[in-house]
């Protein structure tokens, strides 16, 4: 199965590389939202707001990014893939690819955000680790939700509606770790929370692999 996963990932990566529409699209979205924040807040925000705002921006960008991936598959190619690989492999490839994409987006978003809104973070390392792990966990949960939403009539509205309840617990943990890293907490202190993050991500991945086979043929 890992061979199939890698093959599918390579396919997605090369497709994306040739025509960077999804990535650049979401990047533009990030630029716009960060810019709006800059204009509204003029770079002066209390620390809690800084943190929450950043994650809200990232969340919305992720919703878009992950859903686009599923919608772009194209009607005729899908049955072809499904003759080549198991549904679990297809899902796994999607999740890993999305995690990679979201990691990139999160880092770009972070770069833009700190450039414009300042960087009050004391423990940069923990913040960035949380960022990457959080992006990965979000991608796992959102991939499954996108799989569901992309098969319905109005996927973009549905994505928000279905995604929020699923993602909120994850977001809570991520924001908690993020906030404490701003205050200068050490990795050792936040170890428990990071484990919880990994647990949520792991469960999302397992569930996605178990449940995707039931809906992939729609």
């Amino acid at each position, binding site marked *: 199965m890992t061979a199939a996963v890698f093959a599918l990932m390579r396919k997605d990566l090369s497709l994306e590389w040739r025509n960077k529409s999804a990535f650049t699209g979401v990047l533009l979205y990030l630029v716009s939202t960060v810019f709006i924040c800059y204009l509204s807040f003029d770079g002066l925000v209390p620390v809690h707001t800084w943190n929450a705002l950043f994650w809200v921006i990232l969340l919305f960008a992720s919703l878009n990014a992950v859903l686009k991936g599923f919608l772009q598959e194209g009607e005729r190619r899908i049955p072809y893939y499904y003759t080549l690989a*198991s549904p679990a492999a297809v899902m796994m490839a999607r999740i890993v690819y999305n995690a990679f994409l979201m990691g990139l987006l999160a880092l770009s978003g972070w770069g833009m955000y700190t450039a414009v809104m300042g960087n009050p973070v004391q423990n940069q390392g923990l913040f960035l680790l949380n960022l990457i792990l959080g992006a990965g966990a979000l991608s796992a949960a959102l991939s499954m939700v996108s799989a569901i939403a992309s098969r319905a009539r109005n996927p973009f509205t549905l994505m928000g509606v279905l995604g929020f309840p699923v993602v909120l617990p994850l977001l809570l943990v991520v924001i908690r770790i993020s906030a404490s890293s701003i205050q200068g907490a050490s990795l050792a202190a936040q170890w428990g929370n990071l484990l919880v993050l990994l647990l949520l991500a792991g469960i999302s991945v397992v569930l996605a692999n178990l449940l995707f*086979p*039931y809906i992939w*043929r729609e």
Partner: protein
Amino acid sequence: MEITEDKMGVVVLVVAIILAGLALFLFYLERRLHKAERDIHALGREGRPQAAGSQNPPEGQAHSGSLPDETHRIR
């Protein structure tokens, strides 16, 4: 406001009346449902001899307008 026995008694009475109303509503619903179920059952049986050739599936297994591969064996 002091809470006396009498006031509590009034509260109990009010809540009990509300509950009784809800209970009556539920029983009324049940009556309507029962009637509707009987009618549907009669209609169903009536329609069966008419529909020669068309499959009237037994209860709980209707697949009207189903696609050919609907068994969905998950590998």
